[in-house]
C-alpha cells in the first residue's frame, strides 16, 4: 500500500521558499523604518538640545558628524551596507550599540510576552472548549461577548483602568516597573521571575510576580479573546465529525471524547493563531510597556521615536521583525507535530 511520503528535498524546498519570502519583507522593513521616522519633523540633535535650543553652525556640524547631512538615499545606502555587515549602529542618544541595548532589554519583553500568552492559553482554550460544548448556552454567549469586548478594547485604556482600580483604589498591585526598588537582582537569565529565585529572597520573587500581574492581563487580553473564539469555532467544527461519533460509540467518557479526541484536532488551527499572536504581542508590548514603565523593547522603541534616535528605531524594528518571522516559520514547521496528515514522513 502506498504511503504518502515527504522527502527531505520537499522539506528543504519548503524551508527555502519560506526563507526567500523573508528577503522582500526585510527590505520592506528597512525602507519603512528608515523613511517613516525621517518624515517626522525634527532630528535627534534638536531633540537632545531640548528647549535650550542650539546655534545653527553647531547644529550643522553635529549633523555632519552623524552623517545626517547627506541626501536620504545615500544615508539609506550606508545604512543597508552596515546592516549587511551585521552592524546595526549606535544609539545617537546613549552612544551604546543598538544590539547591546536590545539584548539587555529583550528578556523583559519576552518574560512579559510569555506570561501574557500563557495567561491567554490557560483561560482561552478551556473557555473556548466549554463554550463549544455548551453552545448557545448562557456561558457560551457570555464568553463570546466578553471576548469580543476584550478584543475591541484599546490596550492603553484597559491598562489605565486596571491601574486605577487595582493599583490606585484597591492597592493590590504595584503601579509600574518590573520589581520594587528595594531589591537589586543580578541579571543571570534576564527573566526576573527566574533570577529572583537565585537570590533566595522570597520577597524579591513575589515583588517581581506582583509587578507582572497587570501587564500580563493587559497584554494577554487580545490574544485571549482571539484564542477563545478560535478554539470555540474549531471545536464546534470538530465535534460534528464522524470520528467523534466513533469515539462516543466506543463508550469513552465525555471528558476523553472532548478533551482528547476533539481537542487534538481542534488545536491545529489554534496553533496557527497562537503563532500569529507573536506579532500582536510585540505591538501590544509597545503600549503595555509604556503604560507600566516596563523596561523592555516596546518602551525602548517608543522612546527612540520621541528622541528621533534613528539607529535604535531602525535596528529595533529590524530585530523585532526578524523574531516575528522566525517564530512564524517555526510554527509552520512544527505543524507536523500535532497534525500527522502533514507530517513529513521518512
Amino acid at each position, binding site marked *: 500500500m502506498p504511503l504518502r511520503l515527504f522527502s527531505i528535498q520537499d522539506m528543504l524546498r519548503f524551508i527555502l521558499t519560506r526563507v526567500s519570502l523573508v528577503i522582500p519583507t526585510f527590505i520592506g522593513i528597512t525602507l519603512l523604518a528608515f523613511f517613516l521616522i525621517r518624515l517626522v519633523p525634527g532630528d535627534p540633535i534638536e531633540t537632545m538640545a531640548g528647549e535650550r535650543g542650539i546655534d545653527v553652525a553647531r547644529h550643522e556640524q553635529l549633523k555632519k558628524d552623524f552623517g545626517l547631512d547627506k541626501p536620504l538615499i545615500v544615508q539609506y545606502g550606508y545604512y543597508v551596507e552596515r546592516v549587511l555587515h551585521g552592524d546595526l549602529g549606535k544609539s545617537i542618544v546613549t552612544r551604546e550599540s543598538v544590539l547591546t541595548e536590545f539584548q539587555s532589554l529583550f528578556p523583559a519583553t519576552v518574560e512579559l510576552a510569555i506570561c501574557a500568552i500563557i495567561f491567554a492559553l490557560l483561560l482561552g482554550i478551556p473557555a473556548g472548549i466549554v463554550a463549544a460544548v455548551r453552545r448557545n448556552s448562557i456561558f457560551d454567549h457570555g464568553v463570546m461577548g466578553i471576548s469580543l469586548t476584550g478584543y475591541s478594547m484599546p490596550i492603553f485604556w484597559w491598562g489605565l483602568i486596571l491601574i486605577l482600580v487595582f493599583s490606585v483604589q484597591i492597592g493590590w498591585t504595584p503601579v509600574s516597573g518590573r520589581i520594587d526598588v528595594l531589591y537589586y537582582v543580578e541579571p543571570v537569565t534576564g527573566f526576573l521571575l527566574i533570577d529572583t529565585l537565585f537570590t533566595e529572597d522570597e520577597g524579591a520573587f513575589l515583588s517581581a510576580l506582583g509587578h507582572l500581574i497587570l501587564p500580563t492581563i493587559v497584554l494577554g487580553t487580545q490574544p485571549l479573546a482571539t484564542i477563545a473564539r478560535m478554539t470555540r469555532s474549531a471545536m464546534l467544527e470538530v465535534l460534528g465529525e464522524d*470520528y467523534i*461519533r466513533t469515539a462516543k460509540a466506543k463508550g*469513552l467518557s465525555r471528558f476523553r471524547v472532548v478533551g482528547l479526541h476533539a481537542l487534538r*484536532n481542534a488545536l491545529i488551527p489554534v496553533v496557527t493563531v497562537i503563532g500569529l499572536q507573536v506579532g500582536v504581542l510585540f505591538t501590544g508590548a509597545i503600549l503595555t510597556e509604556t503604560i507600566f514603565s516596563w523596561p523592555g523593547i516596546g518602551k525602548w522603541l517608543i522612546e527612540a521615536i520621541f528622541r528621533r534616535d534613528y539607529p535604535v528605531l531602525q535596528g529595533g524594528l529590524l530585530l523585532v521583525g526578524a523574531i516575528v518571522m522566525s517564530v512564524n516559520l517555526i510554527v509552520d514547521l512544527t505543524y507536523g507535530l500535532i497534525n500527522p496528515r502533514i507530517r513529513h514522513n521518512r
Partner: protein
Amino acid sequence: MALLEIENLSVEFPTQGGIMRAVDDVSLKLDEGEVLGVVGESGSGKSVTMLALMGLIPFPGRVKAKKLSFNGRDLLSMSDRERRKLTGKDVAMIFQEPTTSLNPCFTIGFQLTETLRLHEGMDRKAARRRAIELLEQVGIPSAESRLSAYPHQLSGGMNQRVMIAMAIACNPKLLIADEPTTALDVTIQAQILDLLMTLQKERNMALVMITHNMGVVAETAQRVMVMYAGQIMEERSATDLFASPQHPYTAALLSALPERSEGGRLATIPGVVPGLYDRPRGCLFSPRCAYATEHSRNVRPDLRDWAGGKVRCHYPLGDPNRDAAMKADHPLGTEAAS
C-alpha cells in the same frame, strides 16, 4: 429472552419548521446470533433508530421509547456512565465512511488499544498484543507495523477493517453495521461483507446490517426490516420477503433491482420520500403507491402480523380479498401510476 428489545421507539428533532420525526414508533426484537437487515431509502430512519440504541442521538434530538432493553438490562433507566460501559463493549457499531470515522490525529494502534484498555482493563502491552491479533483477524497484512500508521495512510477498505477490528475488540453480543460498504469499491465491498459474515458466524454475534442495497441484504440477512419515512413497513424472513413481498413498497424496491428488471429500463418508484411539511395523513407511502385508495390516503395503517411477519398496509399483496377490498375503498391507482 431476546437479546435486544425495542418497543415504540420514536426519535424527534425540533427544527425551525416544527418537530421532525425521524423515527416513528419502531418496535423490534433481535435474538442472539441473529442477522437482521434494515433497508430503506436515505432518510428512512434506519440509521437514527440504531444511533438511538447506541445513545448517540446528537443534541437537540429527543428519544422516546416504551422499552429499550439489551441483554435483559433496561437502557432507559440506566445512568449515562452505566450505559457507556455497554456501548463499545457489548454493543458496537461501524459506520459508512471508514476514513472519516477514524480520528486523523491518532495512530491505528492508539485507537484500537484505547477500547481494550477502557473496557477490558488491559495494560499497554497486553492491549498491543490483542490489537495485533485483532488486525490479523480482520485480514490486515503486516498487522504489527500497521499499529503505528495513521488513518490517512491506509485505504478506505483497510480503514473499514480497522473499524471492524475496533468494534469486535471486546467481543460484542451485537454489532451494528451502518452501511459498512457504501463508501467502498465494489470488489472491496464483497470482501468486507464476507469478513463481517465470517466474524458473525465465528462469534455467534447478532448483527444488524443497515443498508439501502437489497443485494447486500439478500446475501447476509436472515430477517429483514423495511423502513420508510421513519416507520417499519414490512418485516419478515429474508427468504419470504424476497420470494413474496407483502408491502407494495417492498415490492417496488425489489423490482427496482437490476437483476429483476424486465425489459430495457429499470423500474423506479415515482416521487420522493415525504418531508417535514408534506407528511401524508394516511399511509406514508400512499402518495407514491400504485395501489393507494381513498381509504389509505386518509387512514394510517397499523403494523400488523401478516403471513409469518409484519406489514403496515391496508391491502397486503398476498391478501386473497385484496381486489375486493381495494374496489370498495375507491382506488386511486390509475392516477398515481400516470
